[in-house]
């Protein structure tokens, strides 16, 4: 891409007028997407992007400049602009920066790169899923199928002399359906994705996804409105981890903690959840949607224990927040693209599996609600109140799975809910999504075993999406 001598020159330029740390992040990305709607291939998009972001930290200040002019002059000019904004009066002369390639986890071997798969084949999979969902019957009124992939080359260099090269491939396949009967409309969806090439489809069948999404929409036509009130809630593993993402994930991101915007601030070392609950953020899992070799500051991806048997033991840090707490980054510095500065973000966030038999958890629940699939959610980290939608839910009656229910949202308070988890299954299920924070969306996965919460409020209104302390995850 760009040779290391020029990179060093740019970093030297950036720090000429002062500053503690300079970094350049360069990205080249090729992406494609195919969408089928109204029973036809409606949109195909193909894009090429490249750009660079230069960041300087000076005292508590951050200056960030981005450009897609990657010529020598363009980059030097961007470094000057950033340097000017970060200038200090007592700039000291520094030794020239020398860059050395940083070792990290082994490169990932991609078996089918997006650019090696022809549009014909991508379209074939999309159409197959579209047909499969429509063949489920006349009640299926709308089917949307989409697939998106990208291949990114990332280069990061910083004034600590680190040079990181990374090659990243991601893809995602999604099916969403609308079913209607006598004016009642219900929806269903399925998505799958990961840090992977098209070999993803060796394990996942678009037709199966379409069947699941379509059958769910049809099944929910028979659902009754969810009961309102406080009741025991069992979340099955296949429901994925929206709950952990909202109930504690965001509140454990160090920037929110340091700004005083997290209900988990000043709680390090204390019991914040039931002893049955351990929460981990793990970027090192192979092929998951939030996995990465290096984060977007060049720190190797890590497995970080956040809550250990109910005790708060760690927050998620990027470089800047780690330095404020005099700790090392946990490899959670992520950004949506070169247009954004990195901030602490989740990767794959998991409630660790326990020992209970998942079916036994349901059998031992007299009355309550079983959540089989969660939708999106959001949290107000300042007070810990969160809400998320239920895509697929059932009544539990005398330990048996009963009638399906629809239209339910669950509301709760993070610390209270985590404290009231009384059963933890030995299974584990994942979901993928795009997590939004400070105007940046990043791909994440989350997971949990089958768990039971003693009491949770079913019903209630979602919070205001415009408020600053609210972070949302989208599942579609």
């Amino acid at each position, binding site marked *: 891409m760009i040779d290391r001598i020029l990179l060093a020159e740019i970093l030297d330029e950036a720090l000429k007028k002062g500053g503690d740390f300079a970094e350049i992040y360069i990205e*080249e990305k090729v992406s494609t997407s*195919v969408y089928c709607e*109204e029973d*036809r*291939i*409606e*949109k*195909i*998009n*193909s*894009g*090429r*992007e*490249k*750009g660079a972001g230069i960041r300087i930290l000076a005292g*508590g*200040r*951050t*200056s*960030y*400049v*981005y*450009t*897609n*002019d990657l010529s020598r002059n363009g980059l030097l000019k*961007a470094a000057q*602009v*950033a340097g000017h*904004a*970060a200038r200090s009066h007592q700039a000291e002369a520094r030794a020239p920066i020398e860059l050395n390639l940083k070792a990290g986890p082994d490169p990932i071997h991609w078996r089918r790169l997006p650019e090696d798969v022809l*549009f*014909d084949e991508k*379209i074939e999979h999309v159409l197959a899923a579209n047909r499969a969902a429509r063949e489920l019957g006349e009640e299926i009124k709308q089917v949307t199928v989409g697939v998106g992939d990208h291949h990114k080359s990332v280069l990061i260099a910083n004034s600590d002399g680190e040079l990181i090269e990374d090659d990243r491939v991601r893809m995602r396949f999604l099916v969403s359906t609308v079913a209607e009967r006598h004016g009642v*409309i219900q929806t269903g969806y399925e998505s799958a994705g990961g840090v992977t090439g098209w070999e993803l489809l060796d394990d996942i069948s678009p037709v199966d996804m379409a069947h699941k999404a379509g059958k769910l929409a049809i099944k929910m036509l028979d659902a009754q409105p969810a009961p309102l009130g406080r009741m025991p809630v069992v979340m099955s593993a296949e429901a994925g981890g929206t709950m952990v993402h909202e109930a504690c994930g965001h509140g454990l991101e160090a920037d929110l903690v340091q*700004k*005083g*915007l997290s209900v988990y601030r000043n709680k390090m070392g204390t019991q914040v959840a039931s002893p049955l609950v351990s929460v981990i953020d793990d970027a090192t899992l192979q092929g998951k949607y939030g996995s990465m070799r290096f984060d977007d500051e060049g720190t190797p991806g890590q497995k970080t224990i956040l809550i250990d048997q109910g005790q708060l033991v760690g927050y998620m840090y990027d470089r800047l927040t780690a330095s404020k707490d005099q700790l090392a980054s946990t490899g959670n510095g992520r950004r949506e693209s070169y*247009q954004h*500065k990195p901030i602490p973000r989740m990767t794959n966030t998991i409630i660790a599996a326990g020992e209970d038999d998942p079916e036994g958890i349901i059998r031992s629940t007299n009355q309550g609600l079983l959540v089989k699939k969660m939708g999106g959610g959001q949290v107000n980290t*300042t007070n810990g109140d969160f809400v998320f939608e239920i895509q697929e839910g059932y009544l539990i009656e005398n330990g048996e799975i009963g009638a399906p229910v629809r239209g339910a949202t669950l509301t709760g308070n993070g610390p209270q809910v985590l404290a009231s988890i009384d059963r933890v299954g030995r299974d584990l299920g994942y979901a993928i999504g795009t997590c939004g924070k400070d105007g940046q969306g990043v791909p994440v996965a989350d997971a949990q075993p089958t768990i039971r919460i003693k009491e949770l409020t079913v019903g209630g*209104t*979602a*919070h*205001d*999406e415009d*408020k*600053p*302390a609210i972070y949302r995850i989208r599942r579609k």
Partner: protein
Amino acid sequence: MKGSLQERLTRLGQEVLDQANRLGVDAEVFLLHNRELSIEVSDGQVETLKEAEEMGLGLRVIKDNRLGFAFTSDFSPQALQDVVQDAVSICSFTSPDQFQALPSGPKSYPSLQVFDPTISQTTMEEKIELARQAERATRQYDRRISVIERAGYEDSEFHSLILNSRGIKAYAQGNFCGTYVFAVAEEEGDAQTGFSMSIKQSLTDLDPLAVGQEAAHNAIRSLHARSAPSGRVPCIMEPYVATRFLGMIAQMVDAEAIQRNKSLFRGRLGQRVGSPVLSLVDDGTYPGGIGSFPFDSEGVPSQRTQLIREGQLVAYLYDTYTANRDKTTSTGNGRRSSFRGLPSVGSTNFMLEPGTLTLEELMNDIPYGFYITEVMGMHTANPISGEFSVGAAGLLIEKGRLSTPVRGVTIAGNIIQLLEQVEAVGSDLRFFGGRGAPSLRIRSLSLGGD
């Protein structure tokens, strides 16, 4: 410098258009050059300063009624060739659609004041000071202001070029600026947030003091809010709340939603859809509006489109594609959020026209009611069925005056009924981004509380 950027964009655009034309397709080049500045301050110090410069190209091609699209921000000769190849080859995979077409030109465009040179001439230090002023004004407003979550200044300058095989040639530059504050007020263990923002086309219209004071005011007036009794009560919506509902209405007048049977306004053209005090306009030429620009993202001239006149639905918003489908002409509402995507129907300056009453006059004969300052979970409202049930906060109205603060209540209903129930509109038209509304008085609305 401005001349040279325009020349560079034109040269690049023409080159890509020529390449596409040689392959025998109808093509449209959309080129955008964008500069952005954002400054965030904390305790008078700059916390984050961000400057951005970006240029990108989106190429739309149509071949045998099939649509192809590709984009790039890489302007190397190879990348430009690839983008043309990609867009053209994509045409062989998309389904044919007889209504796909590009607008024909040349067109003449309205001359609008959408570029304020003082924004780019103002120094960084002066802009930082604007953000500081907003933050200071918030703190100084009241001792109960405990945290300023964020306070900042932003501006953006963009140059847009559209060329197509059918003779469209459009170029213009625009800019705007804004300040915002998110504040927290605390008293006796209760903490409430308040925010305010102002986006203006001209720097001299920006009033950081007013923004800071309003954010503080909004946080403080919510302190110690409690629930309120359930029932049907007269309501007044603040302009901000009214613009949130306009978001829902914007989806209902979108011709694409009409054509796909996703709008309650389908088949209602010429009929009464709301109270006679309601008049709704989309105006891409509105003086000072941040949605104003000489042309839309397809190069169709911007215009003023009356959508609802005294309660009667008189028009929908169209881009070129939806206009073809309805055998009519585009209203200049083909919009795109960036060069990375295709145009689709979108609003410009979308506003409810103001009346003549002051807020006091709207309120003074309400013995008991609800003054709504905030709605929560608006994204759960369903624009297809018109149903909404959203969280709300505000103040009670007692004997024609504002009294105690309220939170944790819901308001529910159907948008069609809501439009019927508007019995008066205020004179206080105010814009939040591209949507503007005055205060609205609603005869009665279902309030869910204790």
